[in-house]
């Protein structure tokens, strides 16, 4: 392989990895706090993409032009807001009543929620693939071609993640989140509003997934279907485990790593049919050799 081909593959991989990372932080935050896998998270990503498509495929009385920068920012913000509301609703209706139920029940409820959202999207919008009617110019950087859309997507995702890191490390709410994830009973005894932290976590995770979905629809031009969130959701879950579930920088690292590995494998002439298989092999390998993930701490279970 030539150097420029490898460089191009790295760029391809980082871009798809950034999306995995955006979804993965949602998985990892919810796991960190509730010790549950929110399988409906991929569907939140799909809803974000649907909002982007709805915003660009109609005129909306000419309120804002969807091809202007301001219009697109507004659109992504709307998608985040819609998904945030959805995330809060999911938590309220499906998970809060099961707060003290066995974990298996919560897990199955999460899978049910995922099916429910998929089928709702199917009933409301149908199954035909929907594409955002925008295209992006390509810029050449040496031997590497990057579309403007890809660049914006990459920069925006990285800033979202940097913002999240600041929020968790520097704010009162972030401190409460860390406290709850450390030991929720002790945190509750210290007066941390437990339920409010959980709702906030769902809201942030869902908003990021919504941004990821909206940006994939707008900047990549991926066709949106009701099953749009399934594969990215699974891949993001792999990323979260890869980086160490419960660990936010780990989820980002896991996502970027998975994206780059997938790009290198997908571009390989003989390995390309095994792209997904290799992602899952990676998951098994990590679970075998570093059960706590790349950046996760091994916690001794007290018995």
């Amino acid at each position, binding site marked *: 392989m030539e150097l420029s081909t490898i460089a191009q593959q790295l760029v391809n991989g980082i871009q798809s990895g950034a999306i995995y990372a955006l979804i993965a932080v949602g998985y990892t935050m919810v796991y960190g706090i509730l010790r549950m896998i929110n399988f409906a998270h991929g569907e939140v990503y799909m809803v974000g993409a649907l909002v982007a498509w709805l915003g660009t495929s109609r005129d909306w009385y000419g309120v804002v032009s969807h091809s202007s920068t301001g219009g697109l920012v507004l659109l992504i913000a709307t998608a985040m807001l819609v998904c945030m509301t959805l995330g809060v609703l999911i938590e309220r209706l499906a998970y809060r009543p099961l707060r003290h139920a066995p974990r298996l029940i919560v897990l199955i409820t999460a899978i049910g929620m995922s099916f429910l959202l998929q089928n709702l999207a199917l009933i409301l919008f149908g199954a035909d693939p929907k*594409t955002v009617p925008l295209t992006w110019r390509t810029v050449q950087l040496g031997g590497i071609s990057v579309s403007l859309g890809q660049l914006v997507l990459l920069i925006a995702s990285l800033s979202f993640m940097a913002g999240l890191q600041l929020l968790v490390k520097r704010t009162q709410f972030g401190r409460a989140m860390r406290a709850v994830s450390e030991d929720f009973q002790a945190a509750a005894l210290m007066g941390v509003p437990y339920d409010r932290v959980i709702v906030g976590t769902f809201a942030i995770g869902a908003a990021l997934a919504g941004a990821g979905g909206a940006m994939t629809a707008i900047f990549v031009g991926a066709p949106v279907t009701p099953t749009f969130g399934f594969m990215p959701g699974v891949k993001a879950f792999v990323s979260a485990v890869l980086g160490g579930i419960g660990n936010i920088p780990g989820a980002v690292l896991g996502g970027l790593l998975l994206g780059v590995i997938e790009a290198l494998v997908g571009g390989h002439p003989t390995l390309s049919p095994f792209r997904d298989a290799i992602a899952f092999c990676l998951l098994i390998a990590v679970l075998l050799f570093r059960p706590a993930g790349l950046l996760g701490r091994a916690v001794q279970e007290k018995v």
Partner: protein
Amino acid sequence: MTWRKWLLWLIAVAIIMTLSACTSRSGGSAGGAAGGSGTVNPSARLAKRNAAKVEQSAPEPDQDRIVIGVYADLTGDNSTFGEETRNGVTLAVEEVNRAGGVLGKQVVVRFEDTRSDPQQARNVVTKLIQQERVLAVIGEVASTMSLAGGPICQQYGVPMISPSSTNPAVTDQGNYIFRVCFTDPFQSYVMAKFLAEHLKVKRVAILYDNSSDYSKGLAEFFQESFRKMGGEITDVLSYKPQDTDFRSQLTTIRAKNPDAIYIPGYYKSVGLIARQARELGIKVPLAGGDGWSSPKLVEGAGGPGKAIEGCYFSDHYAPDDPAPQIQEFVKKYRQRFGQTPGGLAALAYDAARVLFAAIEKAGKLDRAAIRNAIANTRNFPGVTGVITINEFGDADKSAVVLQVRGNRFVFVTRITPETATTAASARQVK
């Protein structure tokens, strides 16, 4: 690290590799024979077709009216295919009922949705036969789905006509299975010939859908035909339909600088592939098969005049062909549904009319007699060409090459089986 852990790890890798290779090869147990390796010659195809037996008797069909079952993807990934199929059949049924029905009886259709899921296809075909007691079945579009539903029709002795499944293995499943379209060895020969002779292309890369029997078949047959014509295949890469990133495959393809890329997939992915190819600076023409033939193709590629402009695909008919039977069909279809019919609508219309003609010829609502009448279809004047069912249960027909211009698919050339005999019919067919 102990050796046990290593062993476990190795086993896990082996299992996953095998599983993913299996699912990608067959898309359901019934499809195992389709994309798999191993050359099957025409006599083996015939032997397989004639060896399949009717094992169970299906519930007696309704004698007061003619009930036909249609299974198609109405809400899944390829739903525009199912919609066109439903419209084509509906048009044929409404016409024949207005003219007094078949054998003086009204025709009733039952539509079932497969959602492009092989398991669902098996379920709905069983339902059509056992609960709706249909006389005959029309469907599916995608070969993987027809390979799932076909064995059930054969098992119960219910004649099935696939309007548009092009993988050869579909009609090899038994002598109750027919199709009114051409097959993939011919379709890929058509595109290979078009690229080599009309576009004078020498080096082609292939990017195919690894989970579809149709796409894999086309990729294989195309390589064979194109190499025989003296062309070179620079790369063969694959994708999965749920992928949204094709840049890694396209980057590899770009490194070898081919003159064209053959992408025998379905429209949903092809649009995005075209976009990402252009974004990577790949300017060469893209080519494909009838899986492109959807009004959604151009939309998925970023709109008219964008990524897919000027690209070519093989299809069953051209709506702008001036032949009178085509123009009459296009007019009727537009009046009824307000759209221009694609190839799949025309094939569904033809499939239904071939079936009605066979029922008329059989003279009674008896499934075995109808099967024989379909098998003896000769020179039936269809919209998509003159249909003669050969001993394989396939239709010998010509194909057209269309070019994407703006929002329309424009007729470029027609390639007939006579010119292809050396390559597709007499050749060893996989």
